[in-house]
């Protein structure tokens, strides 16, 4: 997800809230006449706030979802109005992903810490975020190692799975053991001892501006 990071993302939790508001607002207002204008404006707003990469990345997904859900709705109901509503909801879902995609995991975690979210949850998230890249790297290594030991095909499934799973299990157990010990010896405890936050994330003027514009758009859409 790193490639979607913007240099100047919104305040992480705000990004998260905007995602949810966009989604809920879109779902509720799906039948409103102006809703597509709202989507267009929000999309432009995101682009203006530096989310260009995520904005472009969601276009193919939006098309795919619109085709699928719109297509299914039209095939079942044959009703144009219902199809438009389905399209509208699909777009709302996709749009809600934009700030989510661009949230930097580091900032989001720092943000959670600032709001005194229990440390175990924060650490769990940190580890989980790292885990998938590690896992894919491990599997790649193991597959190479399997070839060096002559296990190249699945022809002998028993040996194949052994050669894949045994090292994988041992590595995962090993990595999690080391990781657990490492964070503990680096002073991480689950009790309520005092913790400081280096470099906390702060709300700035951009964030406020974004909220004002976003809220105005939402109100205008509903009123006009």
């Amino acid at each position, binding site marked *: 997800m790193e490639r979607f990071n913007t240099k100047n993302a919104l305040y992480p939790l705000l990004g998260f809230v905007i995602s949810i508001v966009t989604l809920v607002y879109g779902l509720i207002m799906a039948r409103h006449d102006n809703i597509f204008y709202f989507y267009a404006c929000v999309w432009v707003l995101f682009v203006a706030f530096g989310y260009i990469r995520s904005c472009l990345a969601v276009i193919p997904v939006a098309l795919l979802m619109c085709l699928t859900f719109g297509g299914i709705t039209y095939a079942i109901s044959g009703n144009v109005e219902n199809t438009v509503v389905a399209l509208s909801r699909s777009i709302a879902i996709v749009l809600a992903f934009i700030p989510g995609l661009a949230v930097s995991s580091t900032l989001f975690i720092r943000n959670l810490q600032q709001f005194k979210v229990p440390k175990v949850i924060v650490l769990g998230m*940190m580890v989980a975020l790292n885990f998938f890249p590690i896992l894919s790297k491990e599997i790649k290594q193991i597959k190479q*190692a399997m070839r060096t030991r002559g296990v190249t095909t699945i022809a002998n499934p028993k040996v194949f799975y052994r050669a894949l799973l045994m090292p994988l299990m041992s590595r995962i157990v090993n990595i999690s053991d080391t990781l657990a010990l490492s964070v503990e010896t680096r002073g991480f405890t689950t009790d309520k001892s005092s913790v400081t936050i280096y470099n906390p994330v702060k709300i700035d003027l951009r964030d406020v501006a974004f909220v004002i514009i976003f809220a105005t758009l939402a109100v205008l859409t509903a009123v006009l």
Partner: protein
Amino acid sequence: MNKLNIEINENIHNKHIDESVAVDIKNLSFCYANNAEVKVLNNVNFNMRYGNVALLAGMSGQGKSTLFSVINGVIPNVTNGNISGDILVDGKSIIGKSIGDISRVVGSVLQNADSQIIQPIIADEIAFGCENIGMLPMTIEKKIIDSCNIMQLDRTHKTRTLSGGQKQRLITATTLAMGQKIIILDEPLANLDMAGSAMLMLSLRRLADKGYAVLVIEHRLDMVIEYVDTVWNIDGGNIDKVEDKSKYLENQSVEIEDIVTEKVSNDILFQLQEVSYNVRTKSILEDISFDICKGERVVIVGENGCGKTTLLKIISRLIKPTYGRIDQNINSKFGARKKGCKEWYKDVGVIYQNPNYQLFMPTVEQEILFNGYSLEYCQKIVDMFELGSLLHRHPQSLSEGQKRKVTIATVLAARPKVLLLDEPTVGQDYASLKLLINNLNQIHIEEQNTMITVTHDKRCVGAICDKAVKLRRGIIQEVGGKELTL
């Protein structure tokens, strides 16, 4: 190196270092809960002093890491067992204290830096420990600058793209930043090249000169020789202070002799032609061209992250070069650019940097027989590597050093014509190293195999080298003989 700028503890006055006892272990005995008969530590007395660098050395599996875990509280907090005796850290007993509490006094650098990194950016990783002990953000900022200076890291770099050596330095930096006065390190040099090792040891030396107490657990004595004050030897659960330090170190770090005397043939086995390898836009290897003759022992040397392992993987056909080709004369059916198949790996034995990936059978015996050439040959290999007593053990239950020995034995048992070894000596104590190198050379004499080794280990590199290829930042700096390894 002269840029080193260590100002971690401002309160210590260089001239009056108080060499008082930092860690004092008295009559300590310990056995693991699952193996109550064997005392891993037997009535041990040991101490660390402020202002000193201490070295704990000894064979693999003698209890070095156990002592390490006792000092940082992992034993008995995480690992169960019977413990008796007293452990005083900074004058206070740590028995009954949590790891978190002990970590405020003792900084530990664990093995396997690779699995310990949790943050995406270097500065945040360093800040992690400091945040946990409630350091003020301004102080953290200063600590990040200091420890990045000492370990020569760029604070803005992404952690995921670091090389093994850089990761090791980062994990060391995270501990240094926390500022504890007692620092213990478990095999910190395992993945570091010469320059990296010297840099780390020098930094530790300077910390000690500022009043820190440092304990290094290490096999590579040749690298730590000049930096330590006291040496402790661990053997069969007993720890003794070594009085004649220089003699002990000399005995353990003499370069191993090369027993191979025969001359190499002139038949070319591999011909590398302008081999390059890129990952996205980053060039890892560039224009690598050299020949490897039949029966030659080639060593690839170079600093951390210069592309040694990548080159070995390309030769072993685990990955394909982006440009260039490698002609081989092992067998014409393998072609020049085909993917490595089952037959290929029968002729080309590959020993991985990390043995955990290559072991998967339920017992060591089955592991060795899996691709074994014949029963007799396997038996011979078992005897050579002294694995008799481990035959019925589960490979994953062995120590790292033993696992590595088993991996090497399993690959050799298949009687390959070409042997590719990636850092085969990591985690081997001197006796095992000697056995390993002599066995490799013995088999080389008998089988006339071709060996290509990647290693940093100064103790043995000369003993397995006919030709040395020196890499620097992905390009060949020099190709020559043994003299390049010095």
